[in-house]
């Protein structure tokens, strides 16, 4: 996932910034704003190569296929229509708060074809607070967006959280019935353990542990998927030796929470693709090594 590309603000050209928040801090905040736009367009975009120390002239020049230009130009002024005695600065002044929605997109070249209408480059969430201003203060800056990967900087990460867990496995070794069963249910999140009546059949079965408990409630595993494995049931003496918690070693439950540029399922497939590519490269390397 760290190598699935996405776009983020990388260069900030400060024309004027008289706010309390310093240039570098503001630039860092801007960088972390997740941007969205046409996926097709983003795929079409190419990497922007930055000059290195060995090769100071080797950087690519910004053009339509590697740089997207945004602008942030806000000025705070007094609101002449504010009610007397108003003390909320957002009502007292215009643009007291600068939000992500104040960023404007300025397409260049072929970008005009890719990023149109709803596909235009824009912040995923327009309500992200960037800075606060007071009358007379001004922010005027040009923001260059490039494509990058999360391994370089967290702002390029296309996901908020992306993780997996193994499917919990709860085994009730010996029957848990009656009051204990009710307590057992409480040791797990709702819906993990259910209660069932001990049937006559079970009760009549010798050695099952249900003898004489007919009609009482017994605990059964309903949905281990919902369990958070808090291991609470292991704390209580009455369940000692009656339950075994484990995980299914080959059952992965993935949880991918996209930041908003692409859908989670697409991102998952993308990351698998990256992984596959890596494996292929590694394999090739192995072959080369063997030679």
């Amino acid at each position, binding site marked *: 996932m760290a190598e699935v590309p996405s776009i983020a603000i990388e*260069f*900030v050209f400060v024309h004027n910034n*008289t706010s309390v928040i310093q*240039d*570098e801090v503001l630039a860092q905040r801007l960088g972390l704003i997740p941007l969205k736009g046409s996926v097709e367009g983003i795929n079409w975009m190419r990497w922007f190569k930055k000059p290195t120390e060995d090769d100071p002239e080797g950087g690519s020049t910004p053009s339509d296929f590697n740089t997207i230009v945004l602008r942030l130009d806000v000025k705070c002024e007094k609101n002449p229509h504010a009610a007397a005695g108003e003390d909320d600065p957002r009502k007292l002044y215009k643009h007291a708060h600068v939000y992500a929605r104040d960023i404007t997109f300025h397409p260049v070249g072929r970008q005009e074809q890719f990023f149109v209408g709803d596909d235009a480059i824009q912040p995923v969430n327009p309500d992200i607070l960037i800075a606060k201003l007071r009358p007379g203060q001004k922010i005027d800056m*040009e923001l260059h967006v490039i494509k990058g990967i999360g391994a370089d900087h967290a702002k390029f990460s296309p996901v908020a959280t992306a993780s997996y867990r193994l499917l919990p496995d709860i085994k009730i070794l010996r029957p848990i019935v009656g009051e204990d069963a009710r307590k057992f249910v409480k040791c797990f999140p709702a819906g993990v353990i259910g209660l069932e009546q001990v049937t006559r059949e079970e009760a009549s079965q010798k050695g099952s542990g249900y003898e004489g408990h007919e009609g009482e409630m017994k605990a059964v595993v309903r949905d281990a998927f919902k369990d*958070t494995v*808090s291991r*609470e049931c292991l704390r209580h003496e009455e369940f000692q030796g009656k339950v075994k918690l484990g995980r299914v070693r080959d059952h992965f439950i993935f949880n991918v929470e996209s930041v908003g540029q692409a859908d989670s399922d697409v991102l998952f497939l993308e990351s698998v693709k990256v992984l596959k590519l890596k494996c292929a490269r590694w394999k090739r390397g192995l072959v080369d090594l063997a030679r």
Partner: protein
Amino acid sequence: MPPRRRAPISAANLRSTQSGEAAASSRPGTTDASKRRRASQSKPAPPPEEPTPVVEEQPQASDEEHSHTSYRHRDPFDALLEPFYYNKGLTDPINTAKDKWNLLPAFLKVKGLVKQHIDSYNYLVEVQLKKIVESSSTIRSDVDHNFYIKFTNIYLGFPRRADEPQDVRADFSESTVAPHECRLRDTTYAAPIQVDFEYVRGRQRVMRKGVAIGRMPVMLRSSKCALANKTPAEMSVLNECPLDPGGYFIVNGTEKVILVQEQLSKNRIIVETDPKKEIVQASVTSSSNERKSKSYIVLKKDKLYVKHNVLSEDIPIVILLKAMGIHTDKEMLLLVAGVDKVYQEDFAINFEEAIKLGIYTQQQALDWIGARIKINRKQSTYRRTHVQEAVEAIASVIISHIEVKNMDFRPKAIYVAHMARRVLMAKNDATLVDDRDYLGNKRLELAGQLLALLFEDLFKKFCFDIKMNIDKVLNKRNRAEAFDAYSVITMHSNHITQGMNRAISTGNWSLKRFRMERAGVTHVLSRLSYLAALGMMTRISSQFEKTRKVSGPRALQPSNFGMLCPADTPEGEACGLVKNLALMTHITTNDEEGPIRNLIFMLGAEDISTVGGKELYGPGCYTISINGTPMALTRRPKFFLNAFRRLRRMGRISEFVSIYINHHQRAVHVATDDGRICRPLVIVDNGKSRVKAHHLEKLRDGTMAFDDFLAQGLVEYLDVNEENDSLIAIYEKDITETTTHLEIEPFTVLGAVAGLIPYPHHNQSPRNTYQCAMGKQAIGAIASNQFLRIDSILYLMVYPQKPMVKSRTIELVKYDQLPAGQNATVAVMSYSGYDIEDALVLNKGSVDRGFGRCQVFKKYVTNLKSYSNGTKDRLSGPQYENDAPIRKHALLESDGLAAVGEQVNAGEVYINKSTPDQSMSSGFASSDPGRPVSYMPTPMTYKLPDPAYIDKVMISVTENENQLVKVLTRQTRRPEVGDKFSSRHGQKGVVGIIADQADMPFTDQGINPDIIMNPHGFPSRMTVGKMLELVAGKAGVLAGHHGYGTCFGGTPVQEASQILIDHGFSYGGKDYLTSGITGEALPFYVFTGPIYYQKLKHMVQDKMHSRARGPRAILTRQPTEGRSRDGGLRLGEMERDCLIAYGTSQLLLERLMISSDRHEIDVCEQCGFMGYLNWCQRCKSSRSVVKMAIPYAAKLLIQELMSMNVTARLKLEDEFPEMKGR
């Protein structure tokens, strides 16, 4: 005095970051420091468009949902007084046991954390100044006996600038000066000291009012300060932080604190023993307005003597008592020993001494003493007889704080007898020896008292100077005009101003009058963090020498309980000598003694001077002492005590007057003096707390304040001595029938700095002490005016957070509003090898997102001086070459100062100053007006290897009209390997590695830790509080509230664990983690949760240093020392030992000589001296001169020895003689 002219208000002229659209295109900022700048001219961006009106509409639409919070500025304490803790509303029932802590914010609201400083300063300004002037109000001339100047009144005005008129006049308008202006302009925040006086001019008496005799620095937030009684909103208009505690001074632009000084009490008898010399002695340091002296009563070889500086030898006590008019031996015996046989026996031996010397009468005694008085007075006065000499000494030198009125020596005799009795008591019972380290025997000296001493000295010198001056003028026979003393007074006003300024800015209190020579009284207020400043205001420094290896004064005394913080003391040499006040302490100011004395007699006590020794020490008789002086006698001490206390609780006498019974001494002590430490406690009688639920309800409603609790006798102040005489219950459940008081809140035993540790009662005690030292180094927000300040160095955190686990103290000191740290999700596990020895693993994702990011501001100042010949320093614009500024002038604008917002790199000029060449030549330059002045460039260049940005440029004018330029640079730093972090439990560590987010372990929920900490930090340090912080913090995160880790309270673990269980977590805070590297589950559960981490000021960037070759010191030619001078890394003695032991002689030779200060000299084998150019000057030959290489330092040593007439000859020998033949 020259007429003062009203200068234009030269307030700081701050250049804002605005630099216009035109110049702005060359100011690229990048999202990360590592990114290089890109010329923006090449950008293919289209011309900026007007923003569409749709964008304009949006904000208003969604503003509605944000606007439920009110922006009205509120008193920060209001929130605390609102009972929202434990989610209680106004209607909730009140539990006195749990809610009486509400008294604490009420106390702090009236008293505040630095109130002791402010109170003492206010006392100085309002009371003490007047007393000082009263005691020496008249100046008389020795020449003209009709002439006099009499000061009738003195008062301190409000702060004004030095260039504004200081005297009260018709055009006397309010000054607009605010403290922040003084900080920026490097001026002193001071107010004129104004006097009313009358004097004789010619034949008339003239009165003058409001004449300034000098300027006194004003303590911030004192009654004279511009910030007094201002609301937070008004404070912010003055650019001042509402949370700033005040209590310090601004002198020449630096903030100076006068630390609280701890001393042994004055005018009290202290009995001590010297087991080595077998001496028991009672000493008293007398201190009155006129004199300070120390008197002793010593028991030497079973005999009692009086010892004093003025006496050339110890005099037997019987002689002194006789001299004081105790005629009969019997009376003397009774006065000292009473009817007790043991003491009588002990004392009887002393009579022999007097008989041996043949002294039987008062006259003889006085004569004998007079002969032994050191005569050190000026010879100008007439010669006096021995008797007169002795009477004078006994009356006003020995034990000088007891006044002798109308030659009545009786009170002093009783005092001496009392001292003698204490010595005899201590001799017979070693437990009656006083403990010098006992807090009740200590007094704290505050800013007000120290300034009073200083002012008194300066004022007396001022009066003396005026007298001398007037005498000189009046001596002249024929004066042109009538002499006006007013001009003399104004002429001398500078002495007081400068004396005050110098003392506060250097910290040297040298007052000859009181033989006081103290250095280091003031310190620069540390603005490293809010807490550092606050911690400094509560600091107490002791007068003990740091080098002495005694443990007594350093040990934690039981009497410190609730008064001084048990955790907050530095490590190392000052350990235990520098202390800090606890949260609820107050330091008393002086109260009038007279009314109390009257009260004592009104309560039925007998005057002590009317009773003899028999009654004095009779059974059931208790003496009553005021401030250590026996005054009266009572036979019902308990009744007296209760009556006295009742009056105090009724508010008839000051609440700070203390009274207690000492049964060993059979004495009731009343104290009204200043510098006693005291604290409020709830009064308990008949086993019930006087503070009831309805009182607390009223406190909540705001209908009752802390002062009402005092006035209604629910709460009272106890000083250390009185506290020692009380039975104080800590909790309401502990109250028994004999309990007299109830603690308001137990966590107030800690001070402000120790109070921010969560669960400190679960930590090993030194860990709390370590945290107290480290909390002051944490980077965070320092004040709400931090971006307006220009400090020489300022560390700020970009995104400070308030701690997840708070404590009551944190809220009370408002640390949560100016925090210094961030809540990091910590996993306690091992990760790679980069986390051993307390190293931390940081998550790169967290760092990218702003964790631990901080800013460093540095100040660079210059003064544009003007010289005596009329020339001036000047600023000049950049030098051009090929139509572009030369490289090092790239940042400069036309005014010669760097543009705001630009990046400065090493070698670039930010202030292009030049100095006139002939600045030193006097006067003659003006005679040649045609010749242009030539200037020498003296630019200020940026020297640090790491670039910074120009944050601010300030141009202003100092007090002496010089132009002042301050440039503030800013660096924004992200954490790097080697930066120091610490939790709040004395657990510091450096960053060992910054790991990719993808490689960090994650939980089932997908949570990555921000920090991985090695578990080996726990077992030996036993910081259980840290674990509890984690659990309480995790529970708080899940439940959506703050955890509380208040000392002796806080969220119980059971409660926190239950929340964890309810949210599907393990009760212990341990989680199942998956490795980010292998993707497999970790075979152990990991303790994971939020812990508050502080970034400390020690950063690699400031310390990283290496050198291959570089500068050398001139004298020794060895490489220079230290990073700032690009110095070498020393191969020290121990390293040298290693090389010797290992036997690498050539490496040793290379390190110590060749790479350092190798020097070739010519040595004459003949005489052993050094020659020059193959020539020995001593032997006048070059025959046996040989060359050899030695360290330059060795050559220097030889020559230095020669310069002091010590010969050092070099005897040379061939090491391999057989080689010579070949």
